């Protein structure tokens, strides 16, 4: 990923002095971590109208608690209400949006104009942001949505930096762009593979990720007049031939990887100066289904990069450890999407996917006793004495050590921390704080690779 020879962009962020770092929060705990690790705002899903029907979405009560937590940090909470509604969905929207407004939500992210209109009419305190599901990729469309009363547009992921600069030049509105995480390889919203294969409506949260399934690519071996069904072509012989594969000319050979539409994940960490200079107002991280470890790690890296650049743009350098950290939480190869160029063969995943994350979240620091150097750690994954671990926290808090003796709360020595959420005491080499995280290398990954 080389950003050296790229043109420089000088767009203006019109409303925000510093770009906002916007993080996903799949549940209340993830919200707290995202904010504690440096997100200026988080987006969540409620019980209805969002696109992650499988996530453990927020109740209004949890939203209120999340907003209260966010307020202490000066952070905001947005709610994704970005389905494309069917008539049956419309009745409850008004009440739902009023409840969001009452819960202290700052903004909703909307794709369907019907929900935009209801929000502007019934819940005026909610800002309405246009979702990436509208695939907005030109300045004239951005201007249209601004004139409809929207203060912010989330661009389609197909927009290049050059096009963003052009949009910023023409329209004075906040621009939000995805900068990290998994991507639809289609134009967002323009994919109903899920609907066809499994009757699950992708535009109402049912996406089953058929783009990451495996396909074989063929060329029709019949004369064209036959496959477009010219007269006399249609008889059962052709169907039989299809079943036998006679009509298929494979465009692959025996040991080739199958065809896939699956995209590598987006990572723009190395391009932070370009993103800031082009004037993007909000940097959005994808991943409401991702782990706490992932969210905290990714937010922490971008927080440091943004702050470091804003403090001194002239002397900014990317620290290699930010990228190393991101790679510890990533489960897919990374790329720069459409920001510099249209993705090509290097930007898709054809090999079998190794879903294991290189590092696991092993424990959460609850407390630290300065006098004894003993930390209380809540177990999140098995660990035991002798293992190499790392502690990290917001900012550049980071150190490695080996697990020494460990005890349970009653002071009984343990040979391993086996029980989820069990409180474990252990001696740490450096001071730690509540919310710091302990991670360890994922041994499962080695086994999986060996099995392949």
């Amino acid at each position, binding site marked *: 990923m080389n950003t050296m020879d790229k043109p420089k962009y000088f767009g203006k962020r019109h409303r925000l002095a510093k770009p906002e770092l916007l993080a996903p929060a799949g549940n209340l705990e993830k919200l707290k971590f995202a904010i504690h690790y440096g997100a200026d705002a988080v987006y969540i899903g409620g019980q209805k109208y969002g696109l992650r029907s499988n996530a453990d979405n927020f109740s209004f009560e949890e939203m209120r608690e999340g907003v209260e937590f966010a307020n202490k940090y000066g952070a905001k909470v947005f709610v994704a209400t970005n389905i494309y509604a069917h008539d049956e969905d*419309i009745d409850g929207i008004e009440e739902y949006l009023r409840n969001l407004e009452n819960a202290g939500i700052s903004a909703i992210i909307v794709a369907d104009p019907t929900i935009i209109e209801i929000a502007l009419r019934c819940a005026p305190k909610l800002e309405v942001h246009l979702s990436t599901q509208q695939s907005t990729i*030109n300045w004239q469309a951005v201007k249209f949505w601004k004139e409809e009363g929207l203060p912010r547009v989330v661009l389609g992921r197909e927009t290049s930096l050059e096009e963003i600069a052009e949009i910023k030049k023409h329209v004075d509105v906040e621009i939000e762009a995805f900068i990290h995480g998994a991507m639809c390889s289609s134009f967002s919203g323009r994919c109903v593979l899920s609907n066809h294969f499994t009757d699950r409506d992708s535009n109402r949260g049912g996406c089953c990720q058929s783009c990451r399934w495996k396909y074989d*690519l063929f060329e029709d071996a019949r004369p064209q007049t036959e496959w477009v069904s*010219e007269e006399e072509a249609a008889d059962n012989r052709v169907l039989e031939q299809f079943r036998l594969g006679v009509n298929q000319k494979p465009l692959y050979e025996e040991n080739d990887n199958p065809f896939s539409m699956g995209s590598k994940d987006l990572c723009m960490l190395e391009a932070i100066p370009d993103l800031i200079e082009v004037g993007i107002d909000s940097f959005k991280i994808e991943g409401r289904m991702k782990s706490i470890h992932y969210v905290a790690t990714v937010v922490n890296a971008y927080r440091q990069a943004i702050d470091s650049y804003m403090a001194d743009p002239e002397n900014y350098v990317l620290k290699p450890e930010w990228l190393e950290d991101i790679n510890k939480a990533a489960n897919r190869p990374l790329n720069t999407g459409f920001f510099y160029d249209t993705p090509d063969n290097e930007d898709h995943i054809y090999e079998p996917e190794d879903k294991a994350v290189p590092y696991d979240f092993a424990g959460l620091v609850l407390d630290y006793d300065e006098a004894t150097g003993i930390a209380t750690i809540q177990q999140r994954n098995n660990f035991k004495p002798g293992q190499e671990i790392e502690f990290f926290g917001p900012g550049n808090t980071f150190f490695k050590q080996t697990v020494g003796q460990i005890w349970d709360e009653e002071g009984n020595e343990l040979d391993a921390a086996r029980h989820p959420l069990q409180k474990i005491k252990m001696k740490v080499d450096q001071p730690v704080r509540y919310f710091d995280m302990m991670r360890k290398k994922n041994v499962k990954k080695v086994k999986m690779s060996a099995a392949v």
Partner: protein
Amino acid sequence: MSNKPELLVTVSSMEELRRLAEAGADAFLVGEERYGMRMPGEFTREDVAEAAAYVHAQGKRIYVAVNNLMTNDVLDELPAYIAALRDAGVDGVEFGDPSVLAVVREVAPEMALHWNAEMTSTNSSTANYWGRKGATRAVLARELNMDEITGMMDKMQVEAQVQVHGMTNIYHSKRQLVQSYMEHQGRPVSGDLGLQRGLFLIEAERRDEKFPIYEDSNGTHIMSSEDICILEDLHLLMEAGVQSFKIEGILKSTAYNEAVVRAYRQAIDAYAADPDRYEFDEEWLDEVRRLQDPERELGFGFFYKEQVY
């Protein structure tokens, strides 16, 4: 009869347009790749003008697809394109991207606008929203079912168009996925990867379904493995008052599209003549079935499906 629904078909060439006009189509949708999405063939501005003159002489209508997701560089050309369509006398343009609205208001304020956002045109309230922005018709998503469509009709303040026959797009990416895959395999492909190439995908668990795939300057398009055919239940849509029925002619021969147009023409005329005694006649479909690609099923699409999420 003025209350008859319109029978619209997409066409790939002037020659096909003439034959389908002869077969009984009332309206035609044409366009070119730079501005319109997934057209069966290219109609330049000159072709559009010629086609408009031809169909108007027969009292028929022509619409032009301007429903691409536009990029900044296309915006500069749009006013001239819309002006050319206005001068050609077309009866309306289809749009999906709001940028087209602004240009039409400016250059051709009298032009009829049809909102066609394909899979995202899913409710009557949003159709009416675009109606308030100037649209006179909404092209409904193919993923809606019969109950949803018939239930919407009372609430629609704009006309509704429903695709009743042919294949549908199920995935659109701006990426060049076929080319990327072939390069990944170290076997760059020769020649064009467009509609005429006959490329298709087979999913690992569904060996008897072919999904056509092709590339053009708008990216990669994957199409359904079945063809919608709602003729048997067309009366339900006619009863509900759907104003326009669309036949998608993409990736089909003219002979096939002719047979389809004739079949729907018979059904629409029979219903209009006597709705109370209307009965579907199995024979209307004989020729369609005879010409149907045996590797593709004729089905009801999403008309009788219940989707979950």
